[in-house]
């Protein structure tokens, strides 16, 4: 029933309730001060209207007490707003660990979404109700912004960068997805739907779609097609860093710095391999800029994530993925960082 007229958006996520509570507080404060100021203006304007043409009213000097009162009270109120707003923002900005993961690529002028299981959608995203969903997002061209008003969440989607947004849907139905950052001619056409389904219905939707294997397996195929495996070999290390168990771990660089191998690091190492050279290796890798689409990039990342010592494709359920990875990192701790390839 999303095309019916309404004056207030549906509250369809846990965030929506947090934001609305804060919003109503702000509306109350704003209404109080608006009515106060309008009321005082009307009251003074009538009460103290000019009665004699040349009258000069008695002088009333400014009062320090009054000035302090109307400085301190608003200051206290805005600090409450700040603290409350910050707590809601931190909630929005930090996805929970157990979130279901999916990927979003924005381009002029459509949203392309990919599920871990391999389903791909355009201008639509199916998610189950009742559990948090975390989206990792990037753009193929200009800046877009992923906005679902009924969830009260929005985050910009940038080229050359990964951002995340998360939400915890609390009711089933279809909810509008908008691009909120002006992105060119058909900006207003870059809209879609988030379909929130009962978990069982979601599972059957997942199995019903014509996905040709999981995201990681698509990544593995791409890895082979691009011949990445010719250098990044497990059986014959030495020329290129071994990617097994790489994701989420610190990497020692040739210049002495250390970075964590996250999505952004892997993406950068593919499009601009010379930017961060792993210690002990030569900068021999060519750039793959223009050879890998943003969606392919996400598949490669998912494949590399899956190389955590377990066979590719046999990954843990997405929601629980981060924990084994951390564990794997811990297990391999002694051989870290950086020096490992040299030893081998």
């Amino acid at each position: 029933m999303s095309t019916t007229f309404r004056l207030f958006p549906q509250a369809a996520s846990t965030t929506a309730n947090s934001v609305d509570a804060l919003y109503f507080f702000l509306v109350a404060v704003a209404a109080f001060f608006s009515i106060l100021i309008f009321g005082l203006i009307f009251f003074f304007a009538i009460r103290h209207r000019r009665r004699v043409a040349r009258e000069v009213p008695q002088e009333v000097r400014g009062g320090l007490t009054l000035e302090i009162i109307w400085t301190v009270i608003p200051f206290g109120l805005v600090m409450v707003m700040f603290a409350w707003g910050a707590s809601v923002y931190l909630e929005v900005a930090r996805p929970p660990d157990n979130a279901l993961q999916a990927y979003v690529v924005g381009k002029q002028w459509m949203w392309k979404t990919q599920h871990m299981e391999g389903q791909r959608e355009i201008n639509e995203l199916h998610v189950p109700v009742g559990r948090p969903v975390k989206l990792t997002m990037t753009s193929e061209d200009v800046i877009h912004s992923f906005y679902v008003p009924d969830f009260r969440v929005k985050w910009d989607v940038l080229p050359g960068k990964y951002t995340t947004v998360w939400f915890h849907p609390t009711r089933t139905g279809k909810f509008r997805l908008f691009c909120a950052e002006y992105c060119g001619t058909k900006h207003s056409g870059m809209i879609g739907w988030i379909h929130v389904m009962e978990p069982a219905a979601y599972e059957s939707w997942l199995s019903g779609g014509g996905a040709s294997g999981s995201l990681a397996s698509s990544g593995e195929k791409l890895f082979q097609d691009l011949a990445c495996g010719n250098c990044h070999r497990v059986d014959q290390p030495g020329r290129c860093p071994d990617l097994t168990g790489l994701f989420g771990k610190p990497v020692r660089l040739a210049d002495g710095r250390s970075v964590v191998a996250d999505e952004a690091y892997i993406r950068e190492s593919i499009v601009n391999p010379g930017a961060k050279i792993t210690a002990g290796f030569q900068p021999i890798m060519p750039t793959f800029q223009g050879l890998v689409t943003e969606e392919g990039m996400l598949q490669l990342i998912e494949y590399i994530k899956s190389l955590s010592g377990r066979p590719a494709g046999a990954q843990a359920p997405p929601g629980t993925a981060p924990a084994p990875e951390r564990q794997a990192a811990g297990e391999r701790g002694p051989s870290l960082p950086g020096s490992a390839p040299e030893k081998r």
Partner: protein
Amino acid sequence: MITATVEQKHYLNAEYGLKSWLLTTDHKRIGLLYLGTITFFFLLGGIFATLIRLELLTPPGDLTNSETYNKFFTLHGVIMVFFFLIPSIPATLGNFLIPMMVGARDLAFPKLNLLSWYLLLAGGLLSMWAMFAGGVDTGWTFYTPYSTTYSNTYVIATALGAFIAGFSSILTGLNFIVTIHRMRAPGLTWFRLPLFVWSHYAAALIMVLGTPVLAVTLVLVALERAFRIGIFDPALGGDPVLFQHLFWFYSHPAVYIMVLPGMGVISELVSTFSRRRVFGYGFVAFSSVAIAVYGFLVWGHHMFVSSQSVYASLVFSFLSFFVAIPSAIKVFNWTATLYKGSISYETPMLYAFGFIGLFTMGGLTGLFVATLGVDVHVHDTYFVVAHFHYIMVGGTLMAYLGGLHFWWPKMTGRMYPEGWAKLSALVIFLGFNLTFFPQFLLGYLGMPRRYHAYPDEFQVLHVLSTAGASVLAVGYLIPLVYLVWSLRYGKRATANPFGATGLEWKTSSPPPTYNFDVTPAVTHEAYDYRALAEEETEGVRVG
């Protein structure tokens, strides 16, 4: 006062001919040149606003195609911000009044003042050329990498127009700062200055310190677009978010360039029409400076969902709330000025009431967008559109019109027709609220800004907004007619028709070319109505 009926020599009839205007260094004449220029740009920007509202009357994009609509809102923004709002009050009223208010013959650098008008004109003409050559579709915010890599429109020419106009603003600011420091009349100490001068001083600081950053940013956009130098485009190793930092470092303070002079006008109006010294003069004066200073520290509040650091967002939100305090101080002090005043309701005072109400609502909704958790939802929606129109139109434009009516007799020597003026002030107030209040609701409902077409569920509120816009348009056209009419048929103005205290009212209307026959000496504080009454009584006795 009897002599007023005899045609005296004044700045308008001192010289005649086109050359006497185009080569004038008289700040009053330059003020009128600005008045004509910005009125033209206001009407042009208004035409685009009308076209936008007409398109949004119905959900599908049916009046124009998307390319054209995107150019409409871009040109509306570019023209209104760079060629109307920023020069509006400072370059017309400020130019005309600051030398008179400080008791000087002219601004410190009269030729620079004329140059700054030519720069605005040149920038405006260049942007208009871009408009007729094919337009620009980046939004007035020129966000990268859309503006640098993807847009196929006249980005460089438009940006260059804004760049040139920026120098007009810098020179005007420089002129004000030097004039206020160096050319005050004997006895006119800083704390005897009218608050109009204080707020222009604060705005001038922003003009001089902030505008160069905009200039640098626009040059970088042009260089990136022309030569792909790789500052903003991630494919070239640049960072598109860097543009947003640079752009808002100027463009947030620019909001205060627009509104601070308006606050100065309101202080004069509230005081004059309640015959009271502005309550808490010192607090109102320093709150202007505080707003100018804080304004430079809050740019990141435009970027809470831009991928900037979460901790940066926390700091920017915290600092943004600090701007609320000096703004609140002003509103409370203006309201307190009315207490036990002798209040009359001439047109300028109606605009002042309107300003205080609408600025209060604009300021309070500013708290919503400064609040991190709420901004995530309302950012880039019509809530933000409504908020900044309450500040810029409800605030600055109301103040501008109030000031224009208040000083019209001084500028032209003629009175405006009071009845028509009151009517149009009322129409503007009602039309404004009908146009923009529904946009708050639209925004919280989730309607994104810069949408050519939109889903059906938003239509009712859009229809209300468009209806309001047509009322507003009528409200703006009425003064255009009667003010022009009054130039010939208006009642002749006396030197001080409203019983105001400023030095500008101590000379004839319109003033002589050099403003004062004798440099005035100031012996009392601003807004001393008792002293004014005594002088008038003496004047009558002497006369």
